Every structure is written in C-alpha cells, then in structure tokens.
C-alpha cells in the first residue's frame, strides 16, 4: 500500500486521542475527586488535585460506631466498609465461578454431547436473556425468602449467575460445537477416559473462551445495582454497591467516590489483565473453526 498522506495520519491520530479521552475522562474525574481534601473540593479546580490525600479512603475503614464528626448538626455515620468489601469479594468470586462452571458443563453438553434437540435447547436458553430480572422483584423475593436467604448475600449468588448464564452457555456451546472432534478422539484412542480427555486436553486449550465467559460475568455482576440494594438490607450484609447506595450525597460525597474507586480498582485491574483473552475468546466462540 502506498504511504498515507500526512492529513490521513493526523486525522487517525486525533480520532484515537478523542476516543481515549472520551473513554477515560469520567474515570479520571472520579479518581481526582476521591483524592481531594474537603477544602479543595469546595475551592479547588475541579479537574486537578493539588494536594492529593488518602483521607477519604481511610475514612471508609473507620470502625463502626465511631463518630466521624458533624457537618452542621448532622452526625456523620461510619459504615462497616470492611464487611462490604469481604461480602463483595465473596459474591463476585462466587458468581463468576458458579457461572463459568455451570456454563462450561451446559456448553459441553449442548455443543459436544448433543442430546436430541440440542439446537433448540441452545436457543431456548439464550432466549431467556430477554427476561430482565429487574422486573421480577416480587416473585424473586418469594423464591429468596422460601429458601431462607432473605437479607443474605447467598441470594445474590443465586440470582447473578442467571443474568450471565444465557450468554455464556450460548458462547460456550457454540465454541464446543466448532472444536474439531479429533482433538478429543486422539486422547480417547490412547486410552484416556472422556473426563480425562476433557480436563487434560479440551479445558486447557479453551482458556480464552473460559476467560471471556468469566470477564463477561464479572461485568454483569459488577454492573448490578438494583438487586443488591433490594435484597440486602442490613448494613453488615451488604455489598459495596448496596452500601454506597445508602450514603448521604450531601455529607459523604468524597468518601462515597473513594468507595467507588476502591471497588473499581481491583475489578478494572482483573479485567484489564484478561482483556486480550476476552477478545480472543469472543472471536473463538463466535466463528466457525477459529
């Protein structure tokens, strides 16, 4: 190809710049706010932080019951943030694991074992994606309390996987359907059992697709706000998302933005580490023979 003219390069470069700024600016803005002292929040420049401080983050971890001081006559409560953090970790890790395991099993069943009508199973499971859990609060609540999971984070472990499963099963069954059978047959001929062939050969080579399913689930789980706040009511049982929703905007803006960042940093880091695998997995699962 002939070398591109300078204006094409310039156009391409500025498009890239605009896209990057557009994507990152809101995140940068939230990060800057969380590093501000109250004084700088009121009088400083909104776009930069001159004297960064971690006091907003420290405030989150203050022990419960301690009075953090007053704003006017309003008492500033402290929050069981450490409990929220632990609950969030359990819920996120548990939901992702449960979803990936269940969808690998279902995907293998539909893509490789192919029971009668497997294409219809596959479509039916995917079709359930159109039913949003967020319009089903009342009956979901009945299910949750019938199982004795009222105000318990296990309720989220029950509901979250269902939000990601339809897509993950669709993806994984498509992937297993396209995976050449010879891969397994070679191992079977050499005397490996079906399970042995699956765990030693099929699973390791499917890593990108597993990563794609896991990261997709993490994205879905981390984006929920309504279900966490409706089903978890006692402060000690809440996740970070549900807990931050109870913050008083006017009094605790900075601490809340710090809390937002504290949850976002690990989630974004994990996603970023696996980002390339995510793309490769999406490609592999959607395209014949890839």
């Amino acid at each position, binding site marked *: 190809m002939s070398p591109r003219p300078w204006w094409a390069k310039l156009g391409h470069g500025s498009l890239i710049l605009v896209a990057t700024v557009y994507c990152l600016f809101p995140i940068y803005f939230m990060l800057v706010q969380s590093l501000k002292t109250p004084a700088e929040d009121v009088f400083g420049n909104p776009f930069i932080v001159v004297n960064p401080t971690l006091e907003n983050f420290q405030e989150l971890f203050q022990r419960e019951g301690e009075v953090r001081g007053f704003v006017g006559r309003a008492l500033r409560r402290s929050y069981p943030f450490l409990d929220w953090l632990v609950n969030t970790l359990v819920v996120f890790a548990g939901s992702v694991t449960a979803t990936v395991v269940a969808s690998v099993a279902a995907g293998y*069943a539909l893509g490789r074992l192919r029971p*009668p009508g497997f294409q219809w199973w596959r479509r039916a499971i995917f079709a359930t994606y159109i039913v949003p859990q967020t319009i089903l609060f009342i009956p979901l609540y009945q299910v949750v309390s019938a199982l004795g999971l009222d105000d318990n984070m296990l309720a989220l472990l029950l509901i979250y996987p269902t939000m990601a499963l339809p897509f993950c099963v669709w993806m994984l069954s498509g992937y297993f359907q396209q995976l050449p059978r010879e891969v397994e047959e070679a191992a079977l001929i050499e005397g490996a059992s079906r399970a042995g062939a699956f765990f030693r050969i099929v699973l390791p080579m499917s890593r990108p697709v597993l990563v794609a399913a896991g990261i997709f689930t993490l994205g879905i789980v981390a984006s929920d706000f309504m279900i966490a706040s409706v089903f978890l009511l006692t402060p000690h049982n809440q996740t970070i998302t549900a807990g931050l929703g109870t913050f008083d905007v006017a009094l605790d803006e900075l601490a809340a933005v710090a809390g937002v960042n504290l949850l976002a940093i690990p989630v974004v880091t994990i996603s970023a580490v696996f980002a390339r695998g995510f793309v490769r997995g999406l*490609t592999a699962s959607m395209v014949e023979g890839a």
Partner: protein
Amino acid sequence: MAAARSAGRTRDIRLAYLLLAPTLLLLLTTLAYPIGWEIWTSFTDLSPLKDGSAEFVGLTNYGRLLGDPEFWRAALVTVVYAIITSVAKLALGLGFALLLARPFRGRALVFLAIFIPWAYPAGVSVIGWYWTLSPPTTTAYAPAMGHLKHLVDGTFGTGAWAFTSIILFNIWRGSSFIGVLLLAGINAIPPELFECALLESKSRWRRFRLVTVPLLRPFLALAVFLSLTGAFADLANVWMLTAGRIVFPVIGTHAYVLAVKAGQYGPASALALTLVPFLLAILLVLFRLFDPPRREAT
C-alpha cells in the same frame, strides 16, 4: 458394534442432561417461576394491601394500561431511549473497532482505554456519574453543572438534563462493550479477504459495505440484541441517575414503583410483561442473523 455405539450414545445423552441440570435449575428458580408468577398475577388483583385472596380479573389490568396516558408516555420514553442509545452505541462501537483494527503504535493501550468503561463496575460508576452530573452544592464545579442543567432543562423541559445524563452514561458504557465485541469480530475475518477486496474495489466504502459488514453480521446482530434488551429493561441507570426522582419514567421504573412502592402487583405485572413481546420480536428477527454465515466451499 452398532449396539455398542448406541449404548455409548445413550450414555452421552444421559451425561448431557446431567451437565445441563445446574443451568436449568438456576433458570427455573430465578427466571421461569418468577415469569410464571408475573403472568398469573397480571390476570388478578393481587395486592398486599388487600384482604382476602386474589381474584381473577381477566384482562382488566391490561385494558386499564391501554387507556392510561402514563403508560403510553413511559412506553414512548422507553422506545426513544432504546433507539437513541442503541444507534449511538453501535456507531461509536463500530468506530472504535475500526480504529483498533489496524496496527499502530500504542494500540494495546488505546484498546485498554476503550475496554475500561465497560469493565469499570457500573453498579458504582453510576453513583460516580450521578455525583459528577448533579454535584452537592458545595463542590467547586457545582455552579457550572447547575448552569448546564438549567440550560438543558430550560430548552427541553424539566427532567431533560437527568434524561440526557442517563443516555450519556448508557452510551459511554455500552459503546465500550460493543467496540470490543466488534473488534473480536473483525479479528475473525481472515486478512486474505481484505487483500482480495483491495484488488476488487478501490472504494473504501464499497469494501466496508460488501466485505466487512457481511462478515461482521453475527457480531453486529449480537451487539444490537444486547443493546436493545439492556435498554428496554433498564431500570437501575434511570433510577440511580435521577436518585429515584423519576421525571421521565420508563416501563422498568414505572413497574418498579407500582409493585414495590404502591403494592399493586397485578397492574405492575401486566406492565412489566408488556416488554416481553417487544423483546421477543427483536430476538426472532435477530436470531437468524446470529449464526455465522456458512462458508461455502470456494
């Protein structure tokens, strides 16, 4: 030999159902039962505020909806919201994907930048967005945002700013995911095809329309599907970004208020279920586009 094979097949089928069991169990408890309950309730006058058992009222709840201007307003807002956000997300996402398709210096970092809005946990980033767009009055940038809010509300009516902020947030996060999804699609196109196309046609637009779009079709269909279903059922973003002060109700928030706050289970169920035919129609149209185009032997 044939008998052994068919015994093996029976075993495979049994194993398949066993492996499907956890998924089906989850879907039954948290999806099939609730949907069944909603359907049944939508034909009754069930309410926790009413003594005695629920009575079957037939289509009354649906009939009342059709005559309720609030419902039509919510439906219109929902459709507008879904269309605006989907078109914008698709356009931006396609732009991102095409931008990233060709190698350039620093591409890995730009890719991460585009990926991050989706990866950033939306359950909390929506809180951050709310406080950025509607800051407490003490904050340094509050006056500027206040001006902007009054300007938008003054031009388009009360609540327009809140609605705009919801749309902006949805587009910001959604375009990131669609960009990544379409990039995965572009990566799947064999480079030889692009080279062939280059010989066939000089027009970049023709190459895009005749080669890239058809090969991306399953990915584009999936992107449209995820975007529309997400927007139609959206409740959390609207709720959070307006702090529960719903000026522009969508079907999701309307149903939530009716069920959880007002305790009118029957009408609320009917309302929530009006979404399903829409979503089903979208699904049926797009289903045929999902499966990758069969590559004929060439």
